[in-house]
């Protein structure tokens, strides 16, 4: 537990949504582009920007300040991601500090469309958009939830069933395809 401490400093507003790679003319394009190679260690096909974890690159007198945000509070990959970001920039001769911010809270809606396509190709069904919060029935303990159609990443069939709401990582549920019988992960809307 004695690793980098998330901080509440830097109170400038962070973006609340998916981020595109900035245009080449952007002052920090080089850093953004280098960071395209840093992936979520548990889903090594999407970059931290694409999955919504990388939130900002700020210029400071002592170097770059990179802001990342956790997906789930207990995500054990956070420290690894901080190290990977720092190392990636250092190897290119850039000094960088990495800080973690909690707000605004990460949502699976921040995953870019390109990343959703990559997840699918990797065998993980990408998350559906989160339903709009109508303030009603925010949690349905008794009434059955409306079934969500999750297409099998192997064969495309929507004849699938959730075998467990909790999977190999906090962000995924386990599904089984009833057409091709393959098990697969579904990235949960969050």
């Amino acid at each position, binding site marked *: *537990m004695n690793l980098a401490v998330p901080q*509440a400093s830097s109170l400038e507003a962070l973006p609340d949504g998916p981020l595109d790679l900035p245009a080449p003319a952007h002052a920090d394009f080089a850093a953004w582009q280098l960071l395209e190679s840093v992936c979520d260690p548990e889903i090594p096909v999407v970059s931290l920007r694409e999955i919504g974890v990388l939130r900002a690159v700020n210029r400071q007198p002592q170097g770059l300040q990179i802001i990342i945000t956790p997906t789930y509070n207990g995500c054990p990959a956070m420290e690894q991601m901080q190290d990977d970001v720092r190392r990636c920039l250092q190897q290119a001769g850039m000094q960088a500090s990495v800080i973690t911010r909690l707000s605004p809270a990460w949502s699976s809606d921040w995953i870019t469309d390109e990343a959703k396509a990559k997840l699918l190709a990797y065998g993980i069904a990408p998350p559906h958009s989160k339903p709009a919060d109508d303030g009603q029935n925010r949690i349905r*303990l008794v009434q059955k939830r409306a079934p969500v159609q999750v297409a099998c990443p192997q064969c495309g069939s929507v004849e699938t069933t959730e075998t467990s709401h909790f999977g190999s990582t906090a962000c995924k549920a386990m599904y089984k395809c009833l057409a091709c019988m393959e098990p697969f992960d579904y990235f949960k809307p969050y």
Partner: protein
Amino acid sequence: MNASAEFVLHLADNALILGQRNAEWCGHGPILEEDLALANNSLDLIGQARLLYQHVAELRDDGSTEDSLAYFRDQQDFLNFTLLELPHSTALAPSARAERDYAITITRNFLFSAYMLLVWEQLQHHADAQLAAIAVKSLKEVKYHLQHAADWLVRFGDGTEESHARAQAAIDFLMPYTQEFWSEWPSAQAVLGDTTVLLSAWQTTVHEVLTQAGLQLPPSDGYVTQGRAGIHTEHMSYLLAEMQSLARQHPGATW
């Protein structure tokens, strides 16, 4: 310690102690999917505990760290609800060494998650921006925990004769401990304000799920436990010994 630092410490201790308890199922779950579910639940709770301890350390500004708070405090310094430190052993068991009972695990998760859903909802608008940020993130997680526990409680209550009997025994045994959620405590009042609205919402949730499960709502009366004031059961020291011994034998160890 001021009221809000004390209440945040209480929230952190709650999350850590239940996270530690539920992690006992890791490798021992009744089925693989539940093993994963409880491990996920623990990971969420321990993640929440870390953020909360870090915030306590900031608020106290006395050199404490998340590690010193988790590993180097003794039983009487922990402010968690007594409910959360109880072992998973069956309500009808003669001793804490008896076999773990999943009905206890699920019923406790249900009662506590239903409470925390309301607490996090309230705190997401708190003036302390970091506490509010932790609340927004934790709220997402506790919804999963509550849904998971409620689904299983209904399945137990509405299941076989044995699952029904065990679930009823669990709720009968645990319900009195929930009095501690609502007993008067200035630190809670300072942060949460008037909790009577929360109490009524919590009772509605409990009633709704128990009714669906075909379980009887037991009275919650008798002795009011005081884990929150550092007065714990005999189970707490065993839990802490298991959790803290490595850190204390090898202070500052890393891997």
